């Protein structure tokens, strides 16, 4: 009995705590920071419509909408526009800091919290993009993502480092050494993504259009979503049916088959195709892009490191 228990514990420890490089999460950090800056900038385009006392959904109504849940935001009490402009300005700056990896240890939790407050204020205007960006921003806090491709990494090389350097400095500018916290953050993103797809797939399985193969057509002709004409799909109903069924199969079984080495490349390729299609044809460029970014988490950091090393070698030779 002891052997299986030990094996399970070893497997658990290996899965959650075996240190890994932060390369993959650093890529995700860059994309998430850029998207957060864009999201906050877009709120600013009609800030008085979105926030403040005279917003389309005013502070009082937001409070009422959340009276039966545990969401809370300090923005429910902010009425004057200059404060809101300042808030958004700081949020954009922090998002840029996250993107370029400047003081990432501070920028990461702060931009997550400010965006969380905005999300609780903007009920009624949110969609999948906010869910995925918040998910990534939350988990990025855990890992030393500023250790790669960042201003922090550059500063870290400039500052004298070593056993004698201050603990705070070592925490602020982490080394590129593999870390268990990176593994935990990566695993959480992976499992969270599996939960999203699993329930997305189950939801589709309840709809007859995903079974009779017309879902792709009816998604394509939702004019309010459409950004490029997809009505030609109706001339190829066999293709529409196959695409509908592949989407449901892929979404439902993602949580199992993404972990298998043999099926992972195919599932990632379908993820790029599905979300790329949503970005190009259904007008949700931001959402489609961020879902592709989230899928990057299944790419091993060692693979990314090897690719970069190979490129460097090639450029040295030439």
């Amino acid at each position, binding site marked *: 009995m002891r052997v299986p228990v030990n094996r399970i514990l070893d497997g658990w*420890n290996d899965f*959650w705590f075996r240190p890994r490089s932060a390369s993959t999460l650093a890529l995700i950090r860059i994309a998430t920071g850029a998207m957060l800056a*864009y*999201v906050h900038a*877009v709120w600013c385009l009609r800030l008085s*419509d979105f926030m403040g006392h*005279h*917003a*389309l*959904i*005013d502070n009082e*109504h937001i409070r*009422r*909408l959340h009276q039966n*849940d*545990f*969401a809370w935001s300090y923005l429910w009490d902010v009425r004057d526009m200059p404060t809101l402009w300042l808030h958004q300005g700081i949020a954009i700056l922090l998002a840029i800091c996250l993107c370029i990896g400047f003081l990432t240890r501070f920028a990461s939790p702060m931009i997550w919290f400010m965006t*969380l407050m905005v999300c*609780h204020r903007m009920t*009624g*205007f*949110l*969609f*999948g*993009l*906010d869910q995925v960006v*918040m998910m990534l921003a*939350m988990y990025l806090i855990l890992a030393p993502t500023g250790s790669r491709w960042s201003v922090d990494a550059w500063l870290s090389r400039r500052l004298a480092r070593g056993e004698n350097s201050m603990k705070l400095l070592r925490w602020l500018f982490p080394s590129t050494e593999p870390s*268990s916290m990176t593994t*935990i953050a990566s695993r*959480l993103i992976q*499992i*969270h993504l599996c*939960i999203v797809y699993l*329930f*997305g797939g189950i*939801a*589709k399985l*309840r*709809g*007859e259009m*995903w079974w009779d193969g017309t*879902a792709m*057509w*009816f*998604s394509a*002709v*939702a*004019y*309010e*979503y*459409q*950004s490029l004409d997809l*009505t030609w799909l*109706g001339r190829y*109903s066999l293709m529409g049916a196959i695409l509908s069924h592949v989407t449901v199969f892929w979404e439902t079984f993602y949580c199992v088959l993404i972990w298998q080495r043999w099926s992972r490349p195919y599932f990632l390729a379908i993820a790029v195709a599905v979300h790329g299609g949503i970005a190009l044809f259904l*007008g*949700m*460029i*931001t959402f489609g892009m961020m879902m592709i970014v989230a899928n990057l988490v299944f790419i091993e950091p060692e693979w990314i490191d090897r690719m970069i090393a190979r490129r460097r070698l090639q450029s040295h030779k030439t």
Partner: protein
Amino acid sequence: MMGRNWRVFLSFAVVLHLLAVAAEPLRFFSASPVKFASEDARLLRMVTQRYSDFMYLSHGYSFFAPNPGPSHLLECEIAPNSNVDLAAEPPLDRPAFANSSRELSKKSSWRVFPDRRQDRPRLLYHRFFMLSEFYHTHFAPATLAEQSKLDTAIVEQWKQDRRMYEQLQKSILANLEGKHLNHEISLRRVEHALPSEYQIFVDRWKMTDPRLYLVLPEGDASASPERLLPP
């Protein structure tokens, strides 16, 4: 690798966190017309709700599901009060789907949420699209059907929903009235139905064909919508 105590603590933390992530979709999918959620899903949700609500984890994750459905727009008619100088009014800008079958005031201007021409970039457009869908989702009819009035639970729920809907309406109206002083503003929910392959390829309808737009009734929910143009 980190120390044993840390590993034990973090193991519990990640398990609890992931339960919170799964709790809301589980509750959402176990709900039925007669039950808020199954008992186990309700219990899990109850335990994790404070955390998942605050952390913005309470989502159903049902994109384009169970079926892709019609879109809902919010049409705002902005009509000048009688004492306003019409010559100074903004030019008439009727929504693309407005047509002669409805009595549209020539003095009115229009704001439709979302508006492809006006709401750019695309993310801004999508924010307003979500608002119009949110407005539609929160709709509660002005009156209840006679049969429903017999059930006190339904009546109580309806009263609450109706109050929330009216307050949402008031909030949107206040915002628009602040921009259009001395104007009377009215809101309408418009449903944009999805065309069939036959309508597009055989009948040659465009996706913006006025026949696909329905003004949804504000009164009794069982009332039939007003079609903008008879088919």
